C-alpha cells in the first residue's frame, strides 16, 4: 500500500471517529436528559424543614440525636429489650433485636493478665429479654458487667455508604433510618455494620434496626428503651440543644464509643466502658 493510504488516513480516521463519537454521545445524553427534565415535571419545591416528618413544629435542622449508655448503672434487667420489641413490633424470636444487652465476664484468673481483656466471656440470653440467670459469683475476683447495645447512629455510617439504592440514610437530625419502601433486602448494610445492630425483618424482607424511636422523639417523647430503663443507664441526648444534659455529661464523664478504629462517627457514648468490650 502507498503511504497516503495507510498512516495519514488511519490517523484522521481515528480522530474523526472519536470526535463524532463524542459528539454523538454528548448530544444523546443531553437530549435524553432534557426529555427527562420535561417529563419529570417542575422542580421539587423546597418544603419547609418542619414538615418533613409530618409533625408540625418539629424542625429537623434543630436536632442532632445521640445516646448515652452508662455501663456503671446498667443492671441487666432487660426492660429496654422488652420495651423496644413492644414499641417497634420487633419479632419475638431471639435472632431479631433492635437493642440487646450483653453480659461480660473477665474471670478472676485473667484479671492479672492484661491480654485477657481480649477474651472475656460474653453472653446474651435472648438478648437479655428475660434478664440474665445468675452464672457467676460476686466477690470471687472476676469482673462482671452489662453492656446494652443498639444502633450507634453513626455520623459517617458504613451502612449508609454501602446501600446500593439509597434505602438507608442518615436523617438531617442524625438518626440512621431505613426506608422500607425502597429497601431491596440485599443485606449489604447488615454486613457492613460493624456493631451488628441490623437484621433482616423476616416479615417484610427488608433491613431493620433501631430507629431511635423516631416516631417518638419527633413528638417530644423519649425512646422506649430510655423510658423504661429504671436506673437511667440509657439516656437520649440532643446534641444540638444547648440545654440538654448530654453536654454536661460528656464534659464530666470519661466516655468512649464502640470500635473507634472504624471511624464511624458513632453518636452512642459509653460511660465506664471496659477495655474488654468489643
Amino acid at each position, binding site marked *: 500500500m502507498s503511504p497516503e493510504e495507510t498512516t495519514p488516513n488511519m490517523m484522521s480516521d481515528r480522530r474523526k471517529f472519536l470526535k463524532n463519537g463524542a459528539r454523538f454521545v454528548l448530544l444523546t445524553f443531553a437530549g435524553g436528559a432534557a426529555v427527562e427534565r420535561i417529563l419529570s415535571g417542575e422542580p421539587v419545591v423546597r418544603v419547609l424543614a418542619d414538615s418533613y416528618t409530618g409533625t408540625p413544629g418539629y424542625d429537623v435542622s434543630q436536632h442532632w440525636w445521640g445516646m448515652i449508655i452508662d455501663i456503671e448503672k446498667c443492671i441487666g434487667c432487660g426492660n429496654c429489650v422488652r420495651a423496644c420489641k413492644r414499641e417497634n413490633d420487633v419479632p419475638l424470636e431471639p435472632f431479631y433485636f433492635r437493642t440487646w444487652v450483653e453480659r461480660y465476664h473477665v474471670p478472676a484468673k485473667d484479671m492479672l493478665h492484661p491480654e485477657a481483656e481480649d477474651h472475656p466471656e460474653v453472653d446474651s440470653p435472648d438478648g437479655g429479654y428475660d434478664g440474665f440467670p445468675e452464672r457467676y459469683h460476686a466477690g470471687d475476683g472476676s469482673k462482671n458487667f452489662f453492656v446494652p447495645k443498639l444502633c450507634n447512629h453513626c455520623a459517617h455510617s458504613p451502612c449508609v455508604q454501602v446501600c446500593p439504592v439509597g434505602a438507608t440514610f442518615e436523617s438531617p437530625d442524625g438518626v440512621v433510618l431505613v426506608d422500607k419502601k425502597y429497601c431491596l433486602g440485599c443485606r449489604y448494610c447488615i454486613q457492613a455494620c460493624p456493631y451488628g445492630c441490623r437484621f433482616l425483618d423476616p416479615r417484610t424482607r427488608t433491613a431493620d434496626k433501631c430507629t431511635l424511636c423516631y416516631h417518638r422523639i419527633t*413528638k417530644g417523647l423519649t425512646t422506649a428503651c430510655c423510658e*423504661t430503663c429504671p436506673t437511667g443507664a440509657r439516656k437520649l441526648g440532643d446534641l444540638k440543644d444547648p440545654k440538654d444534659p448530654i453536654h454536661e455529661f460528656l464534659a464530666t464523664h470519661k466516655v468512649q464509643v464502640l470500635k473507634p478504629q472504624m471511624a464511624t462517627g458513632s453518636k452512642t457514648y459509653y460511660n465506664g466502658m471496659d477495655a474488654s468490650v468489643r
Partner: protein
Amino acid sequence: MKGGIKDVEHFVRAAVLVGAGLCLFLVLRGFLVPKDFGVLGHYRAGALADIAARPASFAGRAACEECHSDVAEARKGSKHEKVNCEACHGALAAHAQDPGSVTPTLPDTTKLCLTCHEKNAARPVNFPQVDPQEHSGGEICVSCHKPHHPEIE
C-alpha cells in the same frame, strides 16, 4: 463523515440503537425515581414522614402524671422516684389516650421486683440486690415494701 471510515452504515445502526437505549433509560428514570428522592440526601425524603407516623405504645411519664398526680406525689423523695411508670406497668399509651377503654393489670410483684433486685454478680455492687431466700425467707416483696415508696421507715 468525510475521511473514509469504510462501511460506516453498520456502525450507524448500532449507534442509533445505543442512543435510543440511552434515551429510553433516561426517560424511564424520570418516571420511576420518586420526586422527593435527592431532596435531603441520597434517599426518598418522604421516608421520614413514613417512619415518624408510627403510633407510640408507651405513653411516657408525663402522660401518666397528668391524671395520676397522687402517685407522683407519693413517689417524691423515694428511691423509685426516677423509675418511670411504664418501666413496671408496661406500655400504656392506649390507656393514656382513652382511660376507659383499657384497664391496666397490676404487675405481678412476685416476679417484677426480682427483675431488677435479684442478686447478680454483674450488677453494680452498690445497687440494692438481694437473694430472696436469704432476705425474706421467700416472702413476697410487697409484704414489707410499697412499690411506689419502697423505703421502710
